[in-house]
């Protein structure tokens, strides 16, 4: 992790993006969805890991990303790419352990449970939906196959829940089974990056705990915004974003404030 000593004013969204970007190295293949996930991937390449390869489920591999895409199908993911592939081929890079083990995936969700299982499908009962979300897209595929999954979540009690309305993407213990018992090769989520801090998962209990709280945030405030009992005893304060990182994010990655707005 980079130690950006200097600090200055920044938004929670900027802190989230920088936090994710810090977790990406030059050796990684980064796979991301739309919105803040995509911003984090592009920011990682601009700030910390120019050698990282960003690829999209839409099939574009290592594009120039001269302008920020606003969807994974945006023509801006195509310009200057190293290669194109089909959807099947793109997801096959995840399912194939040779490449899947090197992929860092970044996704969001509507709900998360203590084991990092995710819901991005719906609230209510299946067939009697109260609120509908977009569905898995590639999130379940990613969470099933790749070794490093980063999850972006806004910290709200209705989002951090004891029990999901629908289990879209598997975490460390889907439906009470271990991943191995469920037949899943790769690991559960590496981190949940929220607007107040970063959660990780205990390797023994598979349960979420607070790993980092953002500067200016009190761990108990985070605990009170989670719908289950969150261990905050291990938490330390996160480094604020460095001035240089912020500057690159603002002037190179999203100068039009398309996502940072």
């Amino acid at each position, binding site marked *: 992790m980079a130690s950006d000593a200097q600090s200055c004013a920044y938004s929670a969204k900027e802190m989230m993006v920088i936090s994710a970007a810090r977790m990406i190295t030059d050796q990684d293949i980064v796979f991301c969805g*739309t*919105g803040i996930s995509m911003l984090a991937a592009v920011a990682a390449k601009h700030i910390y890991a120019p050698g990282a390869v960003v690829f999209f*489920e*839409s*099939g*574009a591999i290592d594009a120039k990303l001269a*302008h920020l895409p*606003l*969807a*994974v*199908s*945006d*023509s*801006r*993911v*195509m*310009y*200057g790419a190293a290669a*194109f592939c*089909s*959807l*099947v081929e793109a*997801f096959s890079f995840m*399912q194939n352990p040779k490449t899947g083990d090197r992929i860092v995936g970044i996704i969001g969700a509507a709900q998360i449970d203590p084991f990092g299982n995710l819901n991005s*499908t*719906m609230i209510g009962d*299946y*067939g*009697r*939906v*109260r*609120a*509908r*979300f*977009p*569905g*898995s*897209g*590639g*999130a*379940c*595929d990613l969470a*099933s*196959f790749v070794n490093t999954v980063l999850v972006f979540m806004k910290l709200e009690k209705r989002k951090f829940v004891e029990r999901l309305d*629908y*289990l*879209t*993407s*598997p975490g460390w213990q*889907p*439906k009470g*089974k271990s*991943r191995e018992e*469920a*037949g*899943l*090769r790769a690991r559960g989520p590496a981190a949940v990056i929220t607007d107040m801090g970063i959660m990780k998962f205990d390797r023994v209990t598979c349960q979420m705990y607070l790993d980092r709280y953002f500067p200016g945030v009190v761990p108990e405030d985070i605990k009170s915004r989670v719908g289950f009992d969150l261990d905050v005893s291990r938490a330390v304060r996160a480094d604020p974003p460095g001035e240089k990182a912020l500057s690159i994010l603002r002037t190179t990655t999203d100068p*039009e404030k*398309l*996502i940072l707005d």
Partner: protein
Amino acid sequence: MTSPNKIYTLSAAIREFVLPGCHISIGGFTLNRNPMAAVHEIIRQKITGLHLYAHSNGQGLDELAGSGSIDRLDIAYSGNGRYAPTCINFKRAVRDNQILVEDYTNFQMALRFMAGAMGLPFMPTYSSLGTDIPDKWGYGRDLRQSDPTLPVHKLVTMDNPFFRTGSPESHPEEDPGDTGEPIVLLPAITPDVTIIHAQAADPAGTVRIDGLTFSDVEQAKAARRLIVTCETLVDPGALNHAPQNNQIPGFCVDAVVVQPFGAYPTACYGQYDYDPEFLDWYGKQTTDQDGFDAYAGEYIRGCADHAGFIEKACGKRFDTLMADPETGYSLEVKR
């Protein structure tokens, strides 16, 4: 060549191949290369009862949901980039139980089209193990039993028969507790008709897609009938100078429709960009059914064809959407 003539007008192609109640898939991905001219013609012809198969059709899906054209939907993802975290007419139609929905992942939907394209009954994957996707069915067993157009199962979880029990050193018979390795089999999709939009085609039906192909090629080959709308119809032989860039041979194609700007308001790589102003306006205009109906009445049914729709929806602004030749998208469009 002496192939039968495949050149159709859009209205004739939709009328002949998109029958009420049929199973359909459309090409593209969220806000790129959806066959929007064809989607609007389906709405214009008031064709209903459709079963739509989509991995991530944003705009095309949402307009078919808003217009009441679809009864059933197999889907992986229904967002539309920054312009709709969840497509709004889809969202409303699901909440109001106007469409039956069955959820899959993007990989799974792509694999299902691939199985259809390959003439296979199913494709395997490890995706969705441990989730609600294998358990929650949008179409119940009774419906599946009575409707032969549906697969008899949403999916099947089986033991991988090639799984090697025990370690290489141990004898497998000593590991009776080893229950093997589960794997998911997904049923093929063979749509009655697929519609895709491409940059170019020739009169024999050879198709060239520039930029990403998404799952269009598999969707095209899986279908019983295939309509290709294209920006440009080129002379016979013109595409044969670069066969590596042509994805679909003519013998797969039933109708070629010349339809400039046929993907608008979604993007067409190398030709034009998506229209952020229209997509923003559409999102506000169609938040309720009355809003969608007013839009469809004035912009779709109120226009004789796609050129009329573009004139009304975009007008002179279209110039700002035209793609820069180097990057393939617009450098001028305000997003």
